[in-house]
């Protein structure tokens, strides 16, 4: 991966992530997150993982964020900006501590990961990230995890149906 496009895209990704958090307008925030997802998809493309990139766009930018927007628009959260201002002190404190912890974690792990990446880069096969390889990995090496995830999603779906039915009755 060439460094210059990566840095430029990273700046865009970070800028939009910040905009997402700092934006007063919830819908604008959601749109910033969509841009962020799109940039992440481009990162996957640069790594040669076309399949993951497209899935990232289709699932996150295309489906999940549309549902988010859907809810935001239905509730039309606009007049509630005052509510966001009155955050209790304790919340800010906890957020700060957790944030510093996360940064420290990255600081410790990043050098280790960099060391690992150097060793692994040679072992990456040519068709890394191709749909076939991703499918084989999912359904052979990680079948149990895959099935558990599917089961959890199914349970969530049934829960949603039950809740919706109860409201109708």
């Amino acid at each position, binding site marked *: 991966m060439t460094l210059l496009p990566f840095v430029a895209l990273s700046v865009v990704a970070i800028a939009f992530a910040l905009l997402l958090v700092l934006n007063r307008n919830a819908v604008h925030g959601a749109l910033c997150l969509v841009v962020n997802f799109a940039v992440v998809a481009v990162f996957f493309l640069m790594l040669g993982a076309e*399949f993951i990139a497209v899935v990232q766009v289709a699932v996150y930018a*295309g489906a999940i964020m549309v549902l988010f927007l*859907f809810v935001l628009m239905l509730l039309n959260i606009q007049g509630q900006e005052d509510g966001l201002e009155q955050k209790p002190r304790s919340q800010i404190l906890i957020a700060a501590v957790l944030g510093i912890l996360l940064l420290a974690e990255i600081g410790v792990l990043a050098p280790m990961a960099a060391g690992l990446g150097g060793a692994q880069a040679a072992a990456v096969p040519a068709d890394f990230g191709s749909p076939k390889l991703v499918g084989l990995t999912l359904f052979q090496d990680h079948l149990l995890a895959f099935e558990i995830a599917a089961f959890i999603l199914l349970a969530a779906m049934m829960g949603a149906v039950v809740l919706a039915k109860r409201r109708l009755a």
Partner: protein
Amino acid sequence: MSDTLFTWIASLVKAVLVFAVLMSLVPLLIWLERKVVAWMQQRIGPNRCGPFGLLQPMADAVKLIIKENIIPAGVDRVTYYLAPILSIVPALAAFAVVPFGEPVTILGRTVALQVADVNIGILYILALSSLAVYGVTLAGWSSNNKYSLLGALRSSAQMISYEIPIGLAVVSVVLMAGSLSLKDIVDLQRESGYWLVFPQLISFIIFLIASNAELNRPPFDMAEAESELVAGFHTEYTGFRFAMFFMGEYVNLVTVSALATVMFLGGWHAPFGLPEIPIVWFLVKIFAFIIFYMWIRATLPRIRYDLLMAFGWKVLIPVGFLNLAVTAVVVTLAADRAMPLLTAVNVTQAVVVGAVIKIAGRRVERRAPRLAPAPEAGG
């Protein structure tokens, strides 16, 4: 000329050509749609401007461009400007992976007649079509108009729901081809001698219905139901911004027809052993689909919104899953005889499923909450 330079120039030329053709197809399609619908309704249609009224869309375009751009008060400006662009860009970009002919040789180098032959072509189109929702959704929300918002909400729910049956239909086709590349799907149909419309009849029908909903075309044009929502999500748009929604819609129509052609009708190859003419057969097939969509539009009345959603979730998706399961089993167990086997299975299945839809559809209709009869006007 170095190879890289040649690739760059070829890609650029192809991109510009596809863009130009798509954009010049839009006015033609608007004219065709008005004419076809008029003929079906025993009217004459546009006939004042140019021969056969052919210049009518040009006149309309000029009118739309020089019209005043009204930006209503209370509009969310950024998203209001962004929405028309977001509805046309995915439509144009999706065409990039559609192959429209056999590779040709220019200056001793082969050039694929396709802007980009990516090995995940179909997924790319699905991803872009899922992005197309944003144009409609944001237009409706940013307009600060209740009708627009209602239209936007309806269409985003509808488009998300109907993406699933489209996905299921596409996956069945991909199973047959064993590849996500559109070019490989066309090659499979040429080599096996079967157009996938027969072995994948169910997928084909699902795709036709669901894509009509995805295109927001009548009878599924809930997002802009004139009789209920004024004009739905684009109520507050004027001038060229309004025209951009229109263009997006027609470019999408071409893209979906091209996709259907590639997946089910053998792509650019000639039917019945007729002589191959580059690109011509592709256009013929695309126009056959386009005329079909127009025919549907002229024939069927708009479906009620809750029935539309019920149909998508309770009929199309289960049928899609059933078809996917059958396809998977046949392809796994009898890969070498998959084509004739699936043709037989699918034709029977189509008959059975048709009967089921007829019965289940009636049940859904009976169960759907009826609206109270409207009180007499002035009573």
